[in-house]
């Protein structure tokens, strides 16, 4: 049983307008988040259009996880707006934001190790999604057959790649319109990384809109439509993935050279 998510075409748009992009599913403007006195991200703006994969790149500590954390509500932004489908969700609680249709596969996967695979997936649907549990479960295991095979195993005993599938599957259980993936390749062997990226591609083919935070630059740019590069909390360059791949901007960013301030 093949299920596809509703798909709309993805227009090529250059960012840099201050107002939210009307065609975008997610539109972040001027996002600034601080931890106490430390500014983690400053004036970050990005757009994600329906059906595309946008990747956020940057070295460790550049602010990638903070950006995702601000979008999902785990951290309160100090300034800026986050427009999801035209509605500003900045500063909302995670529970509400998930309810709007954003789901996260966190860095390090963070599956519930002491619960079984099935229980993990069940929780992904939230307390409200229980009525459609069977449907959603079927959709997810269609994408990730291994989760069905290991459904009664404790999540903590799965391999890294399987846990990553579980984390993504769990996120999908809430039938999100936007899927955020935080470093899905982290700690995985190259072969497994390939299959994970294949999977992400397949999700895009089914119409899912994805924000992919990655350290694995090549893979990410090979898969994404567009990308943003963060350096010490700011977006220093962005554009279509092909441009980023060919240019030296990304390299410079990682090495701490150049970039606009």
């Amino acid at each position: 049983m093949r299920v596809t998510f509703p798909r709309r075409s993805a227009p090529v748009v250059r960012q840099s307008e201050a107002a939210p992009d009307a065609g975008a599913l997610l539109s972040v403007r001027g996002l600034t988040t601080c931890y106490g006195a430390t500014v983690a991200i400053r004036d970050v703006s990005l757009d994600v259009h329906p059906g595309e994969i946008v990747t956020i790149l940057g070295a460790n500590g550049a602010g990638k996880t903070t950006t995702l954390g601000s979008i999902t509500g785990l951290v309160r932004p100090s300034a800026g707006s986050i427009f999801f489908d035209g509605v500003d969700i900045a500063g909302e609680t995670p529970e509400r934001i998930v309810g709007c249709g954003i789901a996260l596969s966190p860095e390090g996967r963070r599956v519930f190790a002491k619960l079984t695979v099935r229980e993990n997936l069940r929780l992904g649907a939230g307390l409200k999604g229980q009525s459609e549990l069977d449907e959603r479960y079927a959709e997810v295991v269609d994408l990730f057959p291994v989760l069905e095979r290991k459904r009664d195993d404790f999540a903590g005993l799965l391999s890294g790649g399987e846990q990553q599938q579980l984390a993504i599957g769990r996120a999908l259980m809430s039938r999100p319109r936007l899927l955020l993936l935080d470093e899905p390749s982290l700690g995985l062997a190259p072969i497994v990384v390939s299959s994970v990226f294949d999977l992400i591609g397949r999700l895009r083919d089914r119409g899912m809109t994805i924000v992919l935070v990655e350290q694995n630059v090549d893979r990410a740019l090979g898969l994404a439509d567009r990308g943003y590069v963060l350096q010490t909390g700011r977006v220093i360059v962005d554009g279509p993935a092909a441009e980023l791949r060919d240019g030296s901007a990304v390299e410079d960013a990682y090495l701490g050279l150049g970039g606009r301030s």
Partner: protein
Amino acid sequence: MSDRSRIGRARRFVDDRWYLRALVGAALLSALLGIVITCVQTMGSGTDARVALSFLVNLAAVIGIQTFMGNSGVVSFGHVAFVGIGAYTSSLLTTAPETKRMASMIPDAPGFLLDAHMGFLPATLVAILVACAVALAFGIVLVRMSGITAAITTLAILVIVRVVLGNWEQVTHGPKTFFGIPAYTTMWNALAWVVVAIFVARLFRESNLGLRLRASKTDELGSQAIGVDIKRARLAAWVLSAGMAAVSGALYAHLMLAFGPQQFYVDLTFVLLVMVIIGGPTVSGAVIGAGAVTLLTEFLRRGEQGFSLGPIHVDQALGLTTIVLGSIVLLTMIVRPSGLLGRWELDEWLRRGAARLSARRQRPHAPVHDGAPPIDPHAVDLIQTAAAPGKEEA
């Protein structure tokens, strides 16, 4: 920030040597305390003097508890046990043999105890030794635990000692009052013991052991990685603090001249803990916290006899003191869990203030830095979670 003046050189000389820092800090605090006590003694009423005296007696215990809790970060419900041990041990040694032999006291106690008749100083020293020995025995077990388990163990220690003190009829007179204790506690010898406690506490805090212990408070794993022997440091703090608590017990016994085992249980524990919490993790904090709570308690105690708030007249409000104290603790934990005074000693505050002043004097327009901006603990949590490693594939 180069300050080549003589003051600057002297300051750096002191700063570089931990024992000098400790001594200067302790001296400053003791001087302040001494001034306050002298004022009360000379200008205050008899009631004021009594309040100040019981403040000093409690203070010795509070400094002890702070030495353990403030440095190790472990909550201790058990120190009052050592106050009790100090009280009983010293009293057994100072009380006249004839009193002890009375039928209404402890005629069946072992001979050497019945015959003992020492002065305050030797009796207190013995009390300190006994308390430290008991603390050592429990401590060997305690230091292996951390967090909740340790806290519960201290609670268990409190109960164990309470039960023993309350039932060892032969020696402690069981649940009945132990009386006939000579009145050795005066304002000045109490102050003297407290000053000694302040010096010991400060020296421990600045010493290697104290420093290591405080490092383990914020990052246990990290400090273990660089070879810090947390167990030994904790044990030292524990035993030292027990000794100070014993001093408090001895002072208490020779002030009240009679007591029972129920005095060394949950109620006293609560009062002392409130003082420690409000003051925060420093020795200066202990003194200030104890002072603040003593003043507040005095004020409230008068209220317990009945008061009028405008048209409202309350006749007797037993337990009002504790309710207010408890509410203050609750509020403090909600608003400022690290205590009202933060983590710097009094002299450290002064030094930082002076440093800022001199820096501003030399470069009046430059921003003044104290070091790296403080990291928000929530951020640490988030960062640590973000850095949680995934499982490695073979």
